């Protein structure tokens, strides 16, 4: 139970706490902290952690039990020895590590390509239409503040509940990250469902996105209809919310829709690079202004 928790959830708390303990035990059994430590220290060979600031430290969220200003206490023997992550057998760490590292390298390369494509598309769009990253309160270049880190001047937007977050710009056919971002936005806005974005290349109105998987009760609103007016295939700008179509909602380039959930809103904007015709989408999540 958390520090602010009341005692009204005894049975649930007991069940969740027991499950927590069991999970922790299982994780510890599958984890070799010694090698994990060695990996980080080996990668950063020659460097040492920068000194903690002198003077009274900010209260640790975890309380006094987690003050790390002292030398480590005794560590259970099972945490000291073994491999970083004991999957699935104890031996053969190097053999297993090879393919995973290879996979990681490929993933990193793929992400780099996606990022480059995103930047290229968005910078192109900023000349052709508008700067997507310059939406009020949104920032792709500057990540949000990190809990536990002292506030600094470098954050252009104050931390707190009123921040929004541009989660992803998806450039097709490179779609990695979009699914998770859409799910995150939908979950955080309290929309729920199992949303999916599909790319329809040869629709009547050219390349469009098909958004599906939201609950039937989800309310959407068109803030701009973009190319829809030209092709007259999609709803125009609406002043009221409409129920989410059960067959999904097609989004042409230049369309912005707002989906409202119990905890906030998710705004989806489709954009198109004029010379190439490539389309993409930005997903922005706005928490409730409570």
């Amino acid at each position, binding site marked *: 139970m*958390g520090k602010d928790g009341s005692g009204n959830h005894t049975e649930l708390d007991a069940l969740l706490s027991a499950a927590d303990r069991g999970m922790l035990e299982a994780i510890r059994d599958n984890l070799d902290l010694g090698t994990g430590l060695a990996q980080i220290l080996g990668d950063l060979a020659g460097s040492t*952690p920068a000194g903690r600031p002198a003077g009274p430290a900010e209260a640790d969220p975890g309380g006094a039990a987690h003050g790390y200003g002292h030398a480590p*206490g005794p560590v259970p023997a099972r945490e000291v020895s073994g491999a970083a992550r004991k999957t699935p057998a104890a031996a053969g760490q190097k053999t297993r590590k090879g393919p995973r590292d290879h996979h990681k390298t490929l993933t990193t390369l793929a992400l780099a390509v*996606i990022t480059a494509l995103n930047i290229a598309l968005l910078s192109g769009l900023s000349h052709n239409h508008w700067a997507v990253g310059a939406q009020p309160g949104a920032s792709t270049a500057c990540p949000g503040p990190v*809990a536990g880190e002292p506030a600094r001047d470098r954050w252009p937007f104050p931390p707190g509940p009123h921040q929004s977050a541009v989660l992803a710009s998806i450039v097709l056919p490179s779609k990695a990250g979009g*699914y998770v971002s859409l799910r995150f936005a939908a979950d955080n806005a309290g929309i729920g469902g199992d949303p999916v974005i599909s790319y329809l290349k040869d629709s009547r109105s050219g390349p469009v996105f098909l958004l599906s998987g939201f609950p039937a009760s989800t309310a959407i609103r068109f803030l701009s209809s973009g190319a829809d007016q030209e092709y007259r295939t999609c709803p125009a700008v609406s002043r009221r919310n409409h129920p989410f179509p059960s067959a999904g909602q097609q989004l042409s380039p230049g369309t912005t829709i707002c989906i409202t959930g119990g905890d906030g809103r998710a705004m989806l904007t489709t954009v198109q690079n004029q010379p190439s015709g490539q389309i993409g989408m930005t997903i922005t999540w706005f928490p409730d202004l409570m």
Partner: protein
Amino acid sequence: MAGALQAEWEACYRAEMPQLIRYLMKCFGESDMRDAADAAQSAFAELFAKWSTVRSPRAWLRTVAFRQMLRQPAKYPLDAHSEPSVLPASSALELREQERQVLAALRQLPLAQRQVLALVYDQFSCREIAEITGKNEAAVRKNIERARAAMREILGVT
């Protein structure tokens, strides 16, 4: 001095690494332990370099590792015909029935509710959870209550 600082950081690693993995697994039910361990390891590597500026390592780690999980590429193609679900969180672990049941129940909650509930059971206060999640305390309390209500209903407990 450098040795003492490294010992501090190592103590933090040993104490928090398993808990951080558990937190991520509870939040991102779609992932297995390897994803969570990678994200946690990456957060700790970053913490190593920022040890001087991070005053609340537990909260900081949860924020950074959570974002790291979000940044990881989707494992499944973004296609309407592809399976939306991915591996269960417990695929790489030997969990008891009770733990599987709780994880399965958590997976039915929206991510924001899973996150606050995981933080509550990691002994964070509402104020700290608000700081970690970037929401205000009222929204956090609301999410905690909703999450508890949903979990009670799903698990059939009081």
